[in-house]
């Protein structure tokens, strides 16, 4: 490296300058002393330049000796940054919900300061991570430049050079221990509590034969009957509850799947698993014709023998055990031709409204025996139900226990990821200065002893 050559020749220059000063025919003690000092400096800086590889090697040597692991440190940073971002999003969403339910003063007075504190924390951790990563990546160059500065005659840049040599050594070895340092203090911190105990989830509903049931409304209550959330599925029959403002809680809950004119209830105990959770429920007494168009029957009174779809005609064969009713629910304006056992209407129609959409229901009374229900599907009218969703976050925030938890959580994060890293940086900096002092001070005396004798 050119820098090292330059540093080496500067060392020689320093030495020669010292010799010249010593040879000066002026009997002044200060000049002679300066000359000796320059010679010693030159020899010692040359020694350091030759030890360049040794210095670089000492980093990896001490790192492996102490067990500092940069991969683990990187993973730690990524995990912490993700956790901070999630917390940040949750707080933002809580603030948004407060604004929505008319508690804007809470959002601006409490949530905003917490969020800005969190940003401070995130910036501190990120700056620390970036700075030590840069030091780690440029360690060799930093040491070389430090040697160059160290070799400049008359000790002009010697302290700066010593610091530059010490910095990559200390930080590359010491920085990956930050997670261990922080975990030292985790014994005094309260147990980790999640602000919102929710999980992202995809919930889908399928009919008797596994076709998706679309535009259902999912209404979840806890076991005491308090509403947890209300979500509307998309036209593919999936409730996408993966965004943070639409999570679902884990634990026992009652899921009501609302369909036009029908309801299917499941008592579920949702446990943590894959992210997002993939939940599929099958509703056995529904046959989906299309979105918003269904056939309902009673599973206790009739058995479906066969279902076939040919050229837009759906044929269902029922084996009816007791007198029963079969319903065909469709949107008003859709053209369907419904026939029972091949003949006439055989039933009656009623109208109703469900979440702002007008429906008609065809009811067929069936006596025991085998019956065939045929539905010829023509032009269909498909409308999206007008449902005002209630997110789980909303119902949680309204309970009011969230604020103290949020404050303690943010304070804990502030302590863990801002105060402790700053303390750790101070420790590393003081170690750096100590090592720099050793390089610039004490060892110069050692080298003087080496060259001139005691």
């Amino acid at each position: 490296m050119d820098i090292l050559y330059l540093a080496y020749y500067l060392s020689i220059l320093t030495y020669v300058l010292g010799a010249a000063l010593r040879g000066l025919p002026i009997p002044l003690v200060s000049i002679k002393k300066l000359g000796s000092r320059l010679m010693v400096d030159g020899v010692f800086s040359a020694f350091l330049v030759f030890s360049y590889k040794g210095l670089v090697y000492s980093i990896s040597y001490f790192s492996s000796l102490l067990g500092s692991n940069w991969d683990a440190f990187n993973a730690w940073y990524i995990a912490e940054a993700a956790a901070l971002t999630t917390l940040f999003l949750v707080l933002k969403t809580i603030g948004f919900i407060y604004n929505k339910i008319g508690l804007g003063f809470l959002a601006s007075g409490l949530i905003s300061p917490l969020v800005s504190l969190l940003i401070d924390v995130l910036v501190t951790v990120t700056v620390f991570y970036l700075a030590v990563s840069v030091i780690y990546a440029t360690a060799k160059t930093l040491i070389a430049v430090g040697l160059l500065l160290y070799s400049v005659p008359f000790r002009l840049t010697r302290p700066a050079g010593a610091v530059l040599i010490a910095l990559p050594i200390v930080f590359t070895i010491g920085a990956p221990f930050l997670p261990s340092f922080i975990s030292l203090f985790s014994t005094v911190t309260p147990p980790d509590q999640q602000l919102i105990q929710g999980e992202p989830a995809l919930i889908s509903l399928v009919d008797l034969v596994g076709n998706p049931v679309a535009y259902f409304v999912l209404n979840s209550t806890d076991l005491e009957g308090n509403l947890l959330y209300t979500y509307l599925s998309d036209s593919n029959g999936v409730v996408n509850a993966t965004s943070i403002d639409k999570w679902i809680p884990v634990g026992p809950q009652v899921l009501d799947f609302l369909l036009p004119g029908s309801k299917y209830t499941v008592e579920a105990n949702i446990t943590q698993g894959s992210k997002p959770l993939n939940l599929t429920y099958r509703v056995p007494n529904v046959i989906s014709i299309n979105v918003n168009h269904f056939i309902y029957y009673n599973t206790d009174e009739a058995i479906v023998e066969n279902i076939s779809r040919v050229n837009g005609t759906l044929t269902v064969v029922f084996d009816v055990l007791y007198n029963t009713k079969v319903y065909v629910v469709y949107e008003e304006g859709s053209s369907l031709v419904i026939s029972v056992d091949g003949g006439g209407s055989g039933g009656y129609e009623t109208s109703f409204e469900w979440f702002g959409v007008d429906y008609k229901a065809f009811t067929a009374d069936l006596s025991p025996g085998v019956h065939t229900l045929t539905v010829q599907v023509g032009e269909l009218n498909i409308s999206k139900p007008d449902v005002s969703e209630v997110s789980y976050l909303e119902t949680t925030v309204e309970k009011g226990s969230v604020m103290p938890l949020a404050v303690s959580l943010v304070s804990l994060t502030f302590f863990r990821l801002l105060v402790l890293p700053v303390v750790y940086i101070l420790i590393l900096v003081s170690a750096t200065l100590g090592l720099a002092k050793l390089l610039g001070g004490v060892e110069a005396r050692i080298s003087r002893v080496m060259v001139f004798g005691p």
Partner: protein
Amino acid sequence: MDLVEFVKNVTVQVVVVAWALFFLSWVVGWALKGLPIPSTRIKKTGEKILEDGVWAAFWLAVGSSVFALVSYIASAVYQPLPPPPTP
């Protein structure tokens, strides 16, 4: 690198100046010692200049050996880098 060349040239010049200074010290030292004034202080000053000059000449002469030694010691610790040059 030009900077390396520059430092090398400066070093060579400083070496020349240092040798010249040594001869000057040698002459001045002996002149002071041989001065027909029977003052011990002057004689001592001359001797000191002479002695310093000789030491400076000695370190100048063994300079390359000193750096070779340094490189040897450092390489005993780890690999050496540039070979010791002769100024």
